[in-house]
């Protein structure tokens, strides 16, 4: 039985060999017939012949030579020749061998074949890259190689890339049947990026059915891309909103508890940013290895520095002005001018350079989005600060007293709460949070004495929009304003978008003069 099989095998073997007989292909190189050479290159690549890679590489490099009897030699760097098939060194010189040259047709075939050969590489990343290249070149010559490579492929994601490349080749080939083309259009449509859309738009002489399918595909792809655009706007809006939240939340606390508008709040943010700068300078000078942790070190320091300054402001200035909110506004504005000028005198009027630690730089691809890590970190940081503040208000004794004073100052005092202390601590807390916001802002904005001024009006808008004395309102207000701002930008441009947001908030205040979440009860009628 085995013998019979063996015999059958013997009989069939030459037939298999004939299908892609390499020796025929090799002889074409020596013939000097460019068409035959191009065909041979394609044939070798398609057969995945063991020597095909070497031949094609040598052709590319101009190192392939032929002897007069048709044997192929490769010239090494040292000028010696080796036989292609046997790999043995051959004694030959310039007179006895002939360099094999290419014309453009051969060159094209070689390039396609190179891509085709990489489809069979051992490394999945190389195979995927080859498939991607073929998708972009959508060369019909690579079609058969792609089909075979895909049949052999084990890695599903690489197989998908190959299927896409195959589909690209099919839609581009003039003689593919309509059904295959329709299927290919569906595959490309599923890919769904700008290249797929461009490819569908450039199908040569499509039949009506294919043209309709391609058109539908383009529309569908555009819709998906628009969806990604929306997602991107939401992300940038959240990023802007989290910055606003960080800047505004301290303001909301002081305004809510004390009814005090602190115009110097922006300067607390600015001081936080300068604390980051100083921390980084010290680390650069004394412990460069710690640079990655500089921002983490700066956060508590900024909280302490800005919080201490805040308490000093409250004890030294604001407590004399209670019950006169408009005067407080003016006095703190004056203070903000003094603080700005002081920082300008100490650090100079120009922008200072604050570095970004390596773990915060870079980007994370997510579908059609690129998420920059520093913005993501700031979003997470803002949420963490918000959660911490909520917990502090909800679960600590200080938070309880702060809420009591917010709701009814006189009653809280009557119950034995030392309201002056609560005021001072609240102001310190609000300022400290502003300082931490400054650390975050130093990562995305210029650190200059004017840093705080750029955010103060936006922060006010957030507080007024969200409603006083309610941190949820502040959070929702900040995120909403951030997102609305980013959605308006593409239509109206950055400046008009900002104006529109301001006008919207002004109009919104008409409807709800006390913000999204007004305080209820006696505290409401201030």
């Amino acid at each position, binding site marked *: 039985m085995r013998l019979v099989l063996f015999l059958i095998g013997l009989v069939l073997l030459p037939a298999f060999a004939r299908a892609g007989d390499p020796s025929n292909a090799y002889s074409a190189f020596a013939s000097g017939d460019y068409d035959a050479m191009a065909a041979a290159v394609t044939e070798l690549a398609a057969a995945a012949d063991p020597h095909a890679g070497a031949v094609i590489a040598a052709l590319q490099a101009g190192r392939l030579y032929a002897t007069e009897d048709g044997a192929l030699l490769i010239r090494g760097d040292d000028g010696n020749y080796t036989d292609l098939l046997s790999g043995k060194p051959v004694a030959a010189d310039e007179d006895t061998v002939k360099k094999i040259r290419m014309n453009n047709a051969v060159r094209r075939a070689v390039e396609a074949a190179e891509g085709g050969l990489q489809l069979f590489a051992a490394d999945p990343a190389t195979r995927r890259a080859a498939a991607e290249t073929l998708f972009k070149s959508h060369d019909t010559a690579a079609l058969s190689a792609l089909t075979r490579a895909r049949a052999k492929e084990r890695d599903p994601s690489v197989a998908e890339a190959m299927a896409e490349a195959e589909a690209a080749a099919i839609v581009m080939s003039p003689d593919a049947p309509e059904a295959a083309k329709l299927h290919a259009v569906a595959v490309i449509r599923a890919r769904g990026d700008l290249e797929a859309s461009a490819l569908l738009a450039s199908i040569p002489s499509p039949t009506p059915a294919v043209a309709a399918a391609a058109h539908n595909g383009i529309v569908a792809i555009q819709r998906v891309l628009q969806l990604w655009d929306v997602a991107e706007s939401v992300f940038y809006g959240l990023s802007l909103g989290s910055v606003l939240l960080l800047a505004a939340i301290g303001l909301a606390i002081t305004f809510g508890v004390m009814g005090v508008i602190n115009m110097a709040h922006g300067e607390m943010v600015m001081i936080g940013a300068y604390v980051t700068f100083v921390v980084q300078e010290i680390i650069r000078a004394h412990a460069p290895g710690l640079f990655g942790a500089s921002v983490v070190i700066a956060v508590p320091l900024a909280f302490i520095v800005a919080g201490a300054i805040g308490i000093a402001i409250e004890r030294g200035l604001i407590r004399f002005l209670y019950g006169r909110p408009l005067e407080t506004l003016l006095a703190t504005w004056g203070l903000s001018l003094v603080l700005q*000028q002081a920082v300008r005198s100490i650090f100079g009027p120009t922008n200072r350079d604050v570095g970004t630690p390596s773990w915060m730089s870079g980007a994370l691809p997510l579908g059609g989005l690129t998420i920059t890590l520093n913005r993501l970190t700031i979003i997470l940081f803002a949420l963490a600060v918000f959660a911490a503040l909520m917990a502090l208000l909800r679960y600590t004794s200080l938070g309880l007293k702060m809420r009591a004073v917010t709701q009814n100052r006189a009653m809280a005092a009557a119950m034995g709460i030392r309201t002056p202390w609560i005021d001072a601590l609240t102001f310190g807390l609000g300022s400290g949070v502003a300082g931490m916001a400054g650390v975050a802002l130093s990562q995305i904005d210029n650190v200059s004495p004017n840093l705080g001024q750029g955010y103060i*009006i936006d922060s006010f808008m957030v507080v007024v929009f969200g409603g006083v004395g309610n941190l949820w309102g502040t959070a929702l207000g900040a995120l909403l304003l951030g997102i609305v701002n980013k959605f308006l930008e593409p239509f109206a441009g950055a400046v008009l978008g900002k104006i529109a947001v301001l006008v919207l908030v*002004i109009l919104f205040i008409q409807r709800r003069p006390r913000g999204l979440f007004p305080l209820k009860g006696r505290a409401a009628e201030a």
Partner: protein
Amino acid sequence: MMRVSFATLAPPALVLGCAVLLVLGNVVPAASSPFHVPIFAVSLTGKYLAYAILALALDLVWGYVGILSLGHAAFFALGSYAMGMYLMREIGRRGVYGNATLPDFMVFLNWTKLPWYWYGFDHFAFATLMALVVPGLLALVFGFLAFRSRVSGVYLSIITQALTFALLLAFFRNNMGFGGNNGLTDFKDIAGFPLQADSTRNGLLLATALALALAFLLARFVVLSRLGKILIAVRDAESRTRFLGYRPESYKLFVFVLSAVIAGIGGALYVPQVGIINPSEFSPANSIEAVIWVAVGGRGTLTGAIIGAVLVNLGKTYFTSALPDFWLYALGGLFILTTLFLPRGLVRLFEAKPVAALSEVPATKARAA
């Protein structure tokens, strides 16, 4: 009705008298005489008096109705822009590009025809009217919306600030058609009189002093009338006034619009004397600075606003040239010290006891917020 009293007539007389003296000092003595007043001093005084008009307007709403507007410089700047547009059109062919109708910046932006809102600004009278109407209209719309829904206190302050900030951003845009970043400048003459000439500058100072005097008399007439009593009632006890059957929002709206118009006049007189108007006039910091003029002089006195505006700006002119780094400390300190130690202002500092005509009611006792 307004009594014709010393307190009513003295400030305008003093303002006019000083202006006339300065002008005479510039015109009569020879340039070498020690009594000669240089022309830049005349223009500088004119600028201060234009600021004083703004301060007066602000005092009218803050001192008497308790509306702390942090965006009043917006009305001033709108008046300035209206006059600046006239001055731009007046340049005509003398511009760099020699275009008879289009201002230089429009030619530069490749605009081919004048935007519709520039029509009519080649007439002095129309531009003057617009310097009153545009700020007045904005105040009417904004005030109507804000007062109707009872936005008050710091909320109102903040949205007035947002208003001027929005205008600042808008006027920075080139395609708004107001010269963008650079604003309007390079003016040649006003109603046929060359702006560089001493006689024109003297005339502008006199016009500003006259406008300030008239604005003062008008404001004083308003605050001393029956209406003025209600305004003060609204300032001190808005709910009570409402329960007595008045409509505080109507009174507030009236004074707010009047104040905006007065500020617009100030702006219109300001721009020919300084020779430029650009969007930075809209910046919230300017409006807040105007508030400190009033606070320093003494709010709710009208006279104090004028004195405060002139004094603070004298200080600013001196310090920004002599000790530039010191100015912001001084201004910031002024804010803090005035609110802490001088809440009633300079004017009342020298009065042993409040005179009824000057300080109708002691400074607001705001309730805890």
